[in-house]
């Protein structure tokens, strides 16, 4: 529901501010007059990102709160496998979010866009890999510093703002665009809009697909290294199961 509600809010506010020319102003700035699809794509990717970062990041905190984190860590299982296992559940959840939110929007507004929808879905799957890396990072962060929801909310808001969820990142200041450029969601959202609204294909967008592939390697690697470091520190200082 949230992507629909956010889109309704922004559209309502936009109509008030822009008056009769609101849609025209929007088209001038974004290159498309399809406000609903443009906003819903951003909203769906943002929600997906929110679920992944929060769920993966908070999963170990839940174990910590229940007092079962030690049992998990004592099991003869690689930490990486454990984190991947947590992440796999989220693939099912995020896929469902995407299929319902974007699928329903396209079914009503662009019923013939099956191929574009399929390509957007593939792009989402690729974009999930670096997000899991961010989730690993937060798992470590949460074990060490507790209070997961405040941090995940802040980070997800920063992601929503920097990645162009409801606007093109090109309207942000240059230094902010630099930060946007290192976040995977920026490429997922921008490419999805290109594929669905501008008839581009994954092949045409190979440049940013390569960047996304690179981020899919860099983020999980860095995220896991940070997780291991913070976990090791927490096990030395006895912070693993402290409230």
């Amino acid at each position, binding site marked *: *529901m949230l992507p629909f509600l956010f889109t309704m*809010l922004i559209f*309502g*506010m*936009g109509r008030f501010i822009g008056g009769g020319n*609101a849609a025209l102003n929007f088209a001038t700035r974004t290159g498309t007059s399809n406000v609903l699809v443009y906003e819903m794509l951003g909203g769906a990717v943002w929600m997906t990102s929110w679920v992944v970062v929060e769920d993966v990041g908070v999963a170990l905190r839940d174990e910590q709160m229940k007092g079962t984190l030690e049992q998990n860590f004592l099991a003869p299982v690689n930490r990486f496998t454990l984190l991947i296992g947590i992440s796999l559940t989220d693939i099912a959840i995020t896929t469902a979010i995407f299929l319902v939110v974007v699928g329903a929007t396209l079914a009503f507004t662009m019923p013939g866009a099956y191929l574009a929808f399929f390509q957007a879905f593939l792009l989402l799957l690729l974009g999930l890999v670096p997000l899991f890396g961010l989730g690993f990072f937060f798992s470590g962060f949460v074990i060490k510093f507790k209070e997961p929801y405040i941090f995940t909310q802040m980070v997800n*808001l920063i992601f929503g703002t920097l990645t162009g*969820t*409801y606007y093109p990142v090109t309207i942000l200041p240059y230094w902010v665009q630099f930060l946007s450029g290192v976040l995977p969601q920026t490429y997922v959202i921008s490419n999805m809009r290109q594929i669905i609204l501008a008839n581009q294909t994954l092949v045409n967008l190979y440049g940013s697909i390569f960047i996304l592939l690179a981020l899919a390697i860099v983020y999980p690697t860095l995220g896991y290294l940070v997780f291991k470091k913070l976990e090791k520190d927490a096990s030395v200082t006895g912070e693993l199961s402290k409230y």
Partner: protein
Amino acid sequence: MLLVNYLSIDVPRRLAEEFKAAFMKDFRSYIRYPAWLVGDLVSTPLWFFFFAVGVTLFAPTTQTSEYHGFSFFFFGFIFIVLFSTTIWGVGQSVRNEQMAGTLEQFFLAPANRLTLIIGRWARIFLTDLLVVGYTTILLYLFGGGPLPLYEPAHFTFALGLFEVASIGFGLLFAGLTMKLKSYNTLSNLVFFGYMILTGALFPVTVIPMPYRYVSLAIPFTYFIDLMRHAALLTPTIFPENLEYVSAVIVAVAMLLVGSATFNWIERDARARGSIATN
């Protein structure tokens, strides 16, 4: 002995003591986790920025028009922050104690329930003012311009009515969540319903006609309308005096209905033994 002495204190002083104790309890819990304050100070302006940039896509390029939109929108943001206190401050207070397993101790204290809950509201209201003030200064520094407030006395009066009504609504909500348990779904639906239907972020005239009747049936629509009128001199939905009189009656009625409902649900939960069921 201590309890006997306490109960022998006159009622207004006792209520003031209870209020102070409830406020301090919540304040201490809040400052125990510095991350909460950091989260409030970072997240709140970000939410505003996040929406504001999205909305500018629809705006014309003339500065005057965007400036009026900005003020209108910023007041909408304040109304949302205030309502979030109702939902997640007053409404959630009982559920939080329930989840932490401390609700029985809370209710066994020889204190008025409503004072305890209002004490929590006061702490959050104070934090809200801090966040709104900080965001106003931040946006001013980023070139948003000063925020107009044409009729401060009327604005304060309308804000007071809003708060009385919101405490009433929060109590009703607290009672409901004690009974229904499932909090997040209900709170999200109510919160988004408020944002879209009450004209907090855009005038109700933007809402298409059959749905506008729903907006006009929600009391918060009028508190917001009066506050915005006092701040920006925007036209009111109905004649101003009529709205003020109705708002006073509705605010008091909401407080009474909220209190009565909360007390009734609490009594029922005690009888059924469901007060602390997760």
